[in-house]
């Protein structure tokens, strides 16, 4: 069996008495679109924070492509291909859409340290940026400052920035928060497509169950820091415990 | 006043008239905690200018003075000097409180080619190195240098029954230099003295309690301190509260006779403290000084501070030099200033030819109350002739330093 993309061993994290990760063990396979769901406060964001390096783990180890990355700083993880987006919009507000995407592209292309050559002269980089903008559908607004985008477009940009780093594994924390249902389906279809292209493996956190169940290959359910259910959507949908503590009697 | 009446006739008769106003650019500290010094400078200078202009100016030409705030920072001093000479068209410059500024100005004055008379900054390096060694002719100093604070103090101290000395002094060159001069000279004058403690207070210290403790721990017989201005006031008050003057009987303050200090401390200045300065209004007790002090008090409702006197006399020094040279040409005036002897409220001054340092005598005295004044003045006075304790050219080796063989 080939090495999984990400392997987590005994991961734990607590804030005082609040346990947000309680000895988690799981693996993520390349190309598998995984959703993480769970009640509010279950520890989903915290898990992403720990895996992506925003927070340090209290215990346990994280392996990415077989290598231990538990202690690596954020940018190293990103350079290896592990990236994330944020639950709240988190872009460069005063930079243009183009520049927003240009920064991660420069980093990937290892051009970020060129301090004397005009950035406009990096033709290759510009092409890559345009490609990303095409993919998320923001090509028409390349010169708009990010702060002037509508909320939905900012979310798209958010995903675009994350994609621009060419991650192998990308965590999306509620990528559709605050979007209207149509845009929501749109962007998730988009993700589905990108996932299918195989370049990037997506892990998303979502509260819209219609979307989660129709889209994902695999669903993981977190509750009080523990993994209470893990499997294909249908399996999870039918799980009693999940119904009780998360879904409620009927799927809305 | 008699001299004043006689002078104009001589003036109209002898020297050739100098063209245009004589412009003097004067800089001193006029902002921040030491701004009071700037005020005192100006009182003296304004008085001299008004007097001179009333009596027909310098060789017939009006004197004009422009002031600038020196801020104690070297680049500002340089900018001011350049402004005075290159933009305003000053013939001569005066002022400067900080040693660092005076040293930084020396090469600039050489470049600008105009004479300056320093009226406060005390570093001996100015005359010994910049003027004597490097030959910068443009710099003169009318106020007494660190010799007064270090060497002269030692001459006074040698007659006191104190064998163990300590210091609280400013944590910068001035403090270090004075203390080491004091130590060196006193050790030569009085073998066997000990120097038991030193405590250095950074610029702007307001709380001397820790320093005072350091001194009390060492149990010296004498305390020597070249703290000055507001810091000296704070130190004296806090020392009094800590009972220092009960335990240490001999206290020497080389710049304690500054008016801001005496007025600031008022009755809180203890009796029997040794004080001195660059000038003290009670000395010399001659007619010229008495009249000057009276007119100063009348005009400003203040007794003249030492910088008032040095500022005042610096203007007269230029006047005398211009009149002697018959021109305000820098080279000629410099030549006239070199070795020039002048009468001033502080007594007779001679600008030594080699190092351009004015040699004159300032008294040391013991503080005492006097009903005539709302502050302490000098009771017993000791006068050590300046020639006995000023370092001498060539400023190298022990022969240049006091005590000198007769």
């Amino acid at each position, binding site marked *: 069996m080939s090495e999984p993309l990400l392997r987590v061993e005994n991961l734990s994290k607590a*804030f005082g008495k609040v346990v947000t990760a309680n000895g988690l063990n799981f693996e993520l396979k390349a190309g598998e679109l995984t959703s993480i769901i769970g009640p509010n406060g279950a520890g989903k964001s915290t898990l992403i*924070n720990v895996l992506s390096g*925003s*927070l340090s783990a209290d215990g346990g180890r994280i392996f990415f492509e077989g290598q231990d990355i538990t202690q690596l700083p954020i940018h190293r993880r990103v350079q290896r291909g592990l990236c994330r987006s944020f639950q709240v919009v988190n872009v460069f507000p005063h930079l243009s859409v183009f520049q927003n995407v240009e920064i991660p592209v420069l980093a990937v292309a290892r051009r970020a340290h060129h301090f004397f050559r005009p950035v406009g002269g990096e033709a290759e980089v510009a092409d890559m940026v345009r490609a990303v903008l095409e993919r998320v559908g923001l090509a028409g607004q390349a010169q708009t400052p990010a702060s002037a985008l509508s909320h939905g477009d900012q979310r798209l940009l958010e995903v675009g920035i994350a994609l621009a780093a060419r991650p192998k594994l990308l965590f999306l924390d509620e990528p559709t928060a605050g979007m209207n249902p149509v845009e929501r389906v749109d962007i998730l279809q988009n993700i589905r497509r990108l996932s299918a292209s195989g370049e990037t493996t997506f892990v998303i956190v979502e509260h819209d169950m219609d979307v989660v169940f129709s889209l994902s290959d695999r669903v993981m359910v977190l509750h009080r820091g523990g993994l209470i259910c893990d499997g294909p959507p249908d399996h999870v949908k039918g799980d009693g415990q999940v119904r009780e503590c998360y879904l409620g009697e009927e799927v809305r | 006043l008699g001299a004043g009446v006689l002078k104009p006739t001589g003036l109209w008769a002898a020297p050739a008239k100098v063209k245009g106003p004589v412009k003097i650019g004067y800089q001193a500290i*006029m*902002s*921040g*905690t*030491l*701004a*009071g010094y*700037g*005020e*005192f400078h100006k009182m003296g200078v304004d008085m001299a200018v008004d007097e001179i202009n009333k009596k027909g100016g310098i060789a017939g030409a009006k004197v004009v003075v422009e002031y600038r705030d020196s801020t104690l920072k070297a680049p500002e001093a340089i900018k001011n000097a350049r402004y005075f000479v290159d933009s305003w068209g000053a013939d001569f410059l005066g002022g400067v409180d900080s040693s660092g500024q005076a040293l930084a100005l020396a090469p600039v004055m050489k470049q600008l080619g105009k004479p300056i008379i320093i009226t406060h900054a005390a570093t001996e390096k100015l005359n010994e190195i910049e003027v004597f060694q490097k030959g910068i002719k443009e710099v003169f100093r009318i106020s007494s240098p660190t010799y007064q604070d270090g060497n002269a103090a030692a001459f006074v101290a040698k007659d006191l029954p104190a064998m163990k000395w300590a210091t609280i002094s400013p944590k910068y060159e001035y403090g270090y230099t004075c203390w080491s001069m004091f130590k060196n000279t006193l050790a030569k004058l009085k073998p066997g003295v000990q120097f038991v403690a*030193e*405590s*250095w207070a*950074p610029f*702007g*210290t*307001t*709380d001397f*309690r*820790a*320093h005072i*403790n*350091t001194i*009390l*721990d060492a149990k010296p017989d004498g305390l020597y301190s070249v703290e000055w*201005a*507001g810091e000296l*006031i*704070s130190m*004296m*008050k*806090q020392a009094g*509260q*800590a*009972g220092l003057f009960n335990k240490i009987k001999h206290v020497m303050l080389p710049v304690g006779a500054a008016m*801001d200090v005496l*007025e*600031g*401390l*008022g009755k*809180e200045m203890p009796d029997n403290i040794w004080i001195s300065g660059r000038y003290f209004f009670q000395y010399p007790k001659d007619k010229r000084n008495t009249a000057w002090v009276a007119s100063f008090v009348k005009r400003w409702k203040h007794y003249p501070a030492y910088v008032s006197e040095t500022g005042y006399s610096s203007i007269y020094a230029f006047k005398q030099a211009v009149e002697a040279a018959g021109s305000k040409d820098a080279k000629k005036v410099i030549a006239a200033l070199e070795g020039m002897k002048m009468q001033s409220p502080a007594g007779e001054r001679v600008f030594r030819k080699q190092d351009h340092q004015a040699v004159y005598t300032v008294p040391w005295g013991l503080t005492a109350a006097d009903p005539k004044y709302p502050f302490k003045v000098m009771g017993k006075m000791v006068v050590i002739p300046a020639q006995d304790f000023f370092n001498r050219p060539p400023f190298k080796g022990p022969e240049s330093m006091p005590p000198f063989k007769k």
Partner: protein
Amino acid sequence: MLESFVHVCLAGLSKGMFIWLVASGLTLIFGVLGVLNFAHGSFYMLGAYFCFSLLSHLGHNFWLGLILGPLFVCLVGYVVERYFLRYVYHIDLPYQLLLTFAFVLIFDDLVKVVWGAGSIGSPSVAGLSGSVRILGRLFPSYSLFIILVGPLVALGLWGLLEKTWAGRIIRAASSDREMASALGVRVPALFTAVFVFGTWLGAVGGGLAVPYVGLLTPGMGESIIIDAFVVAVIGGLGSLKGAFLGALIIGLLSSFGTRFLPTFDMFLTFILMAIVLLWRPQGFFGEEAAR
């Protein structure tokens, strides 16, 4: 030896408490308004000058001067906040610094113009002008008084902010002005009030400084403001508890430094500041911020 040690401690304590008195207002204003107020030193200076000039009109009653003098400074603080600072809260932090710095320049020179450039020796305080003998050495009663006042002020402020509703409202408004106003807080008025209160603390510090330092000079605020900054910083900016502890540490450190390591006393202070900032930037009492 013991005598010396105790007196070095006492000197450190009084210095620390004295800095604390000034730093408290600075910390409060930073904590609530988020403004690093350079002009705080000026308020301190103005407090000293107003107290001093009232003295001669109040029959040299220091206490009356101490009560009335700072009120004038509050008026100044009010004008500064209401007509100037209020308009720059929303722009870059450096502009706020710059604005308060402009006031430093203005007040320093104004004091010079109004009260004269020279330093003024202060009168002593009836009842506290003497000294008490502690272990054979005299210690000024006034310094003892300062050592007592410091903790009292600290206690009062702590109670005010932690234990009263006014305090909680202030903390809420300081973290989110808009939301507080939506809940019914008159935020601009509250901020003015806090600023004026902080000003008052600084001015009282100035009033208390007159007999402590022994003199008044234009620009006297500059030397204290840096100490106050250091204290506010190592305590964790905005934390009053931290500032209090910071003041104690700086006071003692500088006192012992002066006594035992005289060459490097300034160096010591700043190295301590750097270590604290690197090790616990949120100050002694700050919590670890996770996100």
